[in-house]
């Protein structure tokens, strides 16, 4: 089923918003004003977007430390996200979570996660709830190649299969876990090969190609909504920046990132494809570029100007009642 023009515009806007958000954070982090650990998703946008384009209010996602893209994809407010990353009182989590703990349960975004492999059990739970409550919803867990080895991830694949959950597991294989190569840490050829060990379909997809991701995601979501159970999808993709901001990436090949940016950038590819097929015009895309740039500019400006959390907030929000 081809995407409508509106959907194409929406997808481009989503990808572009993620990219601008991350590129801008990279710049702002260097000024020293952003506290803590910040893991950027730049380069991987087609994955979050290809999946989230299929989701609606019934659906939930569990994310990881590299969670900005997933959050934007699932509809979290960009201003509130930016304020959160700056640790401001009006942040999405009141400034208490920061980049590694962005969440908006009202949007079905169950949280970034500071624990590698922490998200998949939670996604199983969301899928179980959808199934028990008969909402028709699905749940997606996004995690990395490094996380794919973690016991929690593999246990979750098994549990989702045993319980036949509407759950989709997305390995975003960017080739590295911190400095360690996925070729070293993942004992099989493709992380998706493990699907058969849990009796579910396993799919490898080019994560730089929004359309490829979108199609694979669509099938998995359909399968899940129809009660046919979980799917494991591996997106092969690349991150442009270091593991976290501050990482000089000397473990990567010379010019590795430069070449990637020049040749397989997911936004460039999208633009080339939709314009050459006359689905969207350069001008239409440029308009979005301009709007997104303004959005991100505004969000940074507002975040910087926003007040810190009130000191009393230190002791709130830990228990509902005591």
């Amino acid at each position, binding site marked *: 089923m081809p995407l409508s023009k509106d959907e194409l515009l929406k997808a481009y806007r989503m990808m572009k918003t993620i990219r601008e958000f991350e590129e801008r954070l990279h710049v702002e982090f260097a000024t020293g004003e952003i506290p803590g650990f910040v893991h950027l998703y730049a380069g991987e946008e087609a994955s979050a977007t290809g999946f989230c384009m299929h989701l609606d209010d019934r659906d939930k996602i569990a994310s990881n430390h590299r969670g900005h893209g997933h959050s934007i994809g699932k509809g979290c407010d960009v201003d509130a996200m930016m304020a959160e990353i700056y640790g401001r009182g009006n942040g999405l989590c009141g400034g208490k979570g920061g980049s590694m703990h962005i969440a908006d349960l009202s949007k079905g975004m169950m949280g970034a996660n500071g624990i590698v492999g*922490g998200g998949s059990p*939670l996604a199983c739970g969301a899928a179980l709830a959808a199934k028990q409550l008969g909402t028709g919803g699905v749940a997606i867990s996004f995690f990395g190649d490094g996380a794919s080895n973690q016991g929690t991830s593999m246990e979750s694949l098994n549990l989702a299969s045993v319980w036949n959950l509407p759950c989709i597991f997305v390995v975003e294989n960017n080739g590295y876990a911190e400095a360690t190569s996925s070729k070293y840490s993942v004992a099989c050829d493709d992380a998706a090969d493990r699907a058969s060990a849990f009796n579910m379909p396993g799919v490898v997809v080019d994560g730089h190609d929004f359309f490829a991701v979108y199609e694979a995601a669509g099938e998995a979501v359909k399968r899940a909504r129809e009660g046919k159970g979980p799917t494991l999808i591996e997106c092969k993709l690349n991150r442009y920046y270091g593991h976290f901001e501050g990482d000089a990436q000397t473990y990567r090949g010379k010019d590795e990132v430069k070449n990637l940016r020049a040749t397989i950038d997911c936004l460039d590819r999208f633009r080339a494809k939709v314009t050459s097929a006359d689905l969207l015009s350069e001008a239409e895309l440029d308009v979005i570029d301009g709007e997104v740039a303004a959005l991100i500019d505004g969000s940074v400006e507002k975040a910087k100007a926003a007040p810190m959390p009130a000191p009393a907030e230190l002791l709130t929000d830990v228990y*509902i009642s005591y």
Partner: protein
Amino acid sequence: MARNISYQQAIGEALAQEMERDETVILMGEDVAGGAGSPGEDDAWGGVLGVTKGLYGKFGDRVMDTPITESAFIGAAVGAATSGLRPVAELMFIDFMGVCFDQMFNQAAKFRYMFGGNAETPVVIRTMYGAGFRAAAQHSQCLYPVFTHIPGLKVVTPSTPYDAKGLLIQSIRDNDPVIFCEHKALYTLEGDVPEEAYAIPFGEANVTREGDDVTIVTLGRMLHVAHEAADALAKEKISCEVVDLRTTSPMDTDTIIESVENTGRLVVLDESHPRCSIATDVSAIVAQEAFGALKAPIRMVTAPHVPVPFAENLEDLYIPDAGQVQQAVRTVMGKD
């Protein structure tokens, strides 16, 4: 109407009544539905000691067997709790928390705070603890001090069938993550339990015996050891007040302090290992908040700082007993 039923039955009844009342309550754990996929009798087990037996028959797929993957299913319970269900997950023995602690303390416990109030996680983790079963070092621990250390977890340790039912119902209705600790040696203990559902609020200790000379603060199975000691001491004309904490987090410090202000002496009795435990917790709070009332040093009676041994004679020595409590009380009374 109250009947005499066991601690184990009280727990089963609380589960059944809450599942009846609220469709979003579900159960999961190893063999809690009796052994899925097996060719013989349905609902053959109800968890390893039969606590949930019969619930699968009544509630069908709201009672779910799990593979032996505690991280995955405890985490699933946590995730489901943020998505509209009120899961009760069974962690068979508290000793197994080491394979799934992350989902308890970094996920469930922290969501609400990390997400700025933007999450509720009404999950209950029922688990069996304590020594006395000759189950050795990996199946006999207390470990609730570890959970008590963690902000965001509520920790419940019922000592009687009445409390087990009322505290479990409160746990299920509570909107925070609760670790519900059942002492395996108490399952067969009988007591009066009302038929109807009732909830016992958290953070309200129970003064189970009034007295003037010494306050004994305790919890769980040790409550009964404290009473045994108090009975014996009464014959020596020493009058003990016994405080059952019921929940270690939140902990009812007011009741503890009030009692110590009356008696002037404190013995803390806990089956846990001695370091960073409930015993040190209660002692430290009293030494800070009620120091002026103290007429004598505080004494702690705990298990020793060793793993739980297997041999019957060693395990019996390991578990704090009434004799040790009596000795501690005599010491704080200056009568040793």
